[in-house]
C-alpha cells in the first residue's frame, strides 16, 4: 500500500502570537514552529498501516517555506520513508493550496492520502476534502477510528452528540482527528536515519485565489473579572449576579 501524508508547519500551540507590522500576518521572528498536531495523527496512522501490512511506502508532503524541511524531517524521524516539499509562501485561500497538493498527489498513485483534521494556525479545516474533490476521490473527514480490509474503509467520525460510521473504497482521502491514535515520538535512531532519507524540494506557484486577508487583530481583551468571594458561602451571591447582572441564567 502506498500512503501519502500531508503535513503543515505551524507555530507552536503554546507560543505567544505577535501580529506583524503589516497588520495582516503574524511576526515570525523568534517563533517556534512545530508539525501541525493533527497531522501527527496522520503520520502515525500511515506508519501503523504500513507496519500492519508489512509492506508499502509512506511519503510525507508539505506545502510551505524552505523552513518546512525541518518539519518534514520530524516525520521522517518518526519513520516515514521519504518527503516532498512543495516550496511556496502559501495562500490564505485553501483551494489554491489544495490545487497544488492535488497536482502533486494525483500523479503519485496513492492508495490512501492522509491529512490532519485541521491546521491549528489558520483553522480553515478544508484542504483535505478539497484535495479529494479535485482528485475525484472519496473522503472521510475528522476520523477517530479506522478499520480497513480488502480495499474497503470503515471510519468513525464524531458528530455533535454521536458517532457516524462511514464506509468507502480505496483509493481515498482521510483527515485524522485526535483519538485516532497516539503519535510516536521520534527515536534517536530515527532522527539519525531521517538525515539520510530523501527529501525532494519542488518550487510551486499558487494561483491568486479568491480570498484576501484584510487584517489581523488581537481578540478583544476580556474585562478583568472579580472574585465574588471565597468558598461555598459565596455561591448565593454568584447565582444572584448571574441572574440579575449577567442575565446568564
Amino acid at each position: 500500500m502506498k500512503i501519502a501524508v500531508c503535513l503543515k508547519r505551524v507555530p507552536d500551540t503554546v507560543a505567544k502570537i505577535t501580529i506583524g507590522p503589516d497588520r495582516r500576518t503574524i511576526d515570525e521572528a523568534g517563533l517556534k514552529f512545530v508539525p501541525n498536531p493533527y497531522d501527527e495523527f496522520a503520520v502515525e496512522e500511515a506508519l501503523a498501516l504500513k507496519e500492519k501490512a508489512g509492506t508499502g511506502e509512506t511519503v510525507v508532503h508539505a506545502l510551505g517555506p524552505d523552513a518546512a524541511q525541518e518539519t518534514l524531517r520530524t516525520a521522517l524521524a518518526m519513520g516515514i520513508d521519504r518527503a516532498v516539499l512543495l516550496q511556496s509562501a502559501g495562500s490564505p485561500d485553501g483551494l489554491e493550496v489544495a490545487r497544488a497538493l492535488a497536482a502533486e498527489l494525483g500523479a503519485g498513485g496513492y492508495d490512501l492520502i492522509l491529512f490532519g483534521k485541521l491546521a491549528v494556525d489558520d483553522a480553515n479545516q478544508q484542504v483535505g476534502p478539497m484535495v479529494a474533490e479535485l482528485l475525484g476521490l472519496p473522503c472521510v473527514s475528522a476520523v477517530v477510528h479506522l478499520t480497513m480490509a480488502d480495499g474497503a474503509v470503515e471510519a468513525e467520525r464524531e458528530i455533535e452528540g454521536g458517532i457516524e460510521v462511514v464506509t468507502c473504497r480505496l483509493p481515498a482521502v482521510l483527515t485524522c482527528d485526535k483519538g485516532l491514535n497516539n503519535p510516536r515520538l521520534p527515536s534517536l535512531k530515527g532522527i539519525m536515519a531521517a538525515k539520510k532519507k530523501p527529501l525532494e524540494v519542488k518550487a510551486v506557484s499558487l494561483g491568486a485565489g479568491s480570498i484576501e486577508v484584510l487584517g489581523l487583530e488581537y481578540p478583544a481583551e476580556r474585562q478583568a473579572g472579580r472574585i465574588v468571594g471565597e468558598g461555598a458561602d459565596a455561591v448565593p451571591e454568584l447565582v444572584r449576579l448571574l441572574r440579575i447582572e449577567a442575565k446568564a441564567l
Partner: protein
Amino acid sequence: MALKVLAVLEARDGAVRKVSYELVAAARELAGAAGSVDALVFGAQTPAGAEDLAALGADRVLSAGHPDFARYNPDGFAATVASLGAGYAAIVFAATATGKDLAPRAAARLGVGLASDVVGLALQDGAVVATRPVYAGRAIQKVKLRGTPALVSVRPNAFQPAARDDARTAAVEALAVPAFEARIRVQAVKAPEKAALDVTEASIVVSGGRGLKDPANFKLLEELAEALGNTAVGASRAVVDAGWRDHAAQVGQTGKTVSPGLYIAVGISGAIQHLAGMRTAKTIVAINRDKDAPIFKVADYGIVGDLFEVVPRLTEEIRKVRSER
C-alpha cells in the same frame, strides 16, 4: 446592495437542527432586507421544522428529498449545493461536523474559496467580509471573499436566530436532486450511551480540569449540568490526555472552541491553550482553589475555594432558582 443568499441547513433524525435557525439569521444579515434568503434542507422527506423557516427569516424553502438523504450523504449533498451554487452571491454553511465536511467539497466543486468557522459577517464594496478566529482564538482574521458565490461556514452560537414573525410564510418547494455517485456512505449513527449535548452547541458549558482529582468526580459537574439544563460537560486537555474524559468534550486548542452564553470552569487553571477555546463565551465563571490561577484573569466572576464544597452548593442553589420558575 441586495444579495441573493443560500443557507445550507442541517437536519438530524428528520428534524431541522437549532443551528439551522442561526444560519438563516446569518444569511439574512448578509442579504439585508432588500436581498433574499433561500433555505436548503435535505432529507428522505422534508424535515420537521422546515415550515418554520419563513417565519424565522427565509424567503424560500427548498427541500432536497432523496431516499439516501435520511442521513448525511456527502456526495449527494455536495452535488446538490454545487448545482444551485452559481445562482447565488453567497452560500452559508454551519461550522458543525457535517458543515465542515460539506462546505469544502462544495467549494472545490464550485471553484471558489471558503472562509471557515466565521463569527462575523459584513459587506464591503459589495463583497462579503468574514471575521474568524485563527491561531486557536489568539488572533482574529478579517478576510474578503472575492469569489462568486462567496462561501462561509459560521460557528454555532455566533449568530442569534431571528425573532419569529408568523406573518412571513413560504411554501416548501421540492427541489430536484441532481444525479450523483454515492462513493461515501454513512452506514449508521451511533449515539453515546447517554445522549450528550455537544460543547459547541450547548447554551451553557461546565468544564472540569485536573482540580477534580479523579474521573469519578465529574459526576459533580454532570449534576450541575443537569440542574442548569441545556448544558454540556466539557474538559481541559490535561484530563482528556489522562483518559478521564472523551476527546469530544475537550475545550481549547486541539479540542473545541466554544462560544456559549455561560461557561463555568471548575478546577481548571487556565492554560493559554484552554483559554483560546472558551474566551468568546458571553459570561465566564471560574471556581478554583488557587486565587492566582490565570483563569481568574478572564473570568467575569470567580469563587476561590474548594470545588468539592462550592460545586454541590452551586447545584443546590441552581435547583432552587430553576424550581421557582
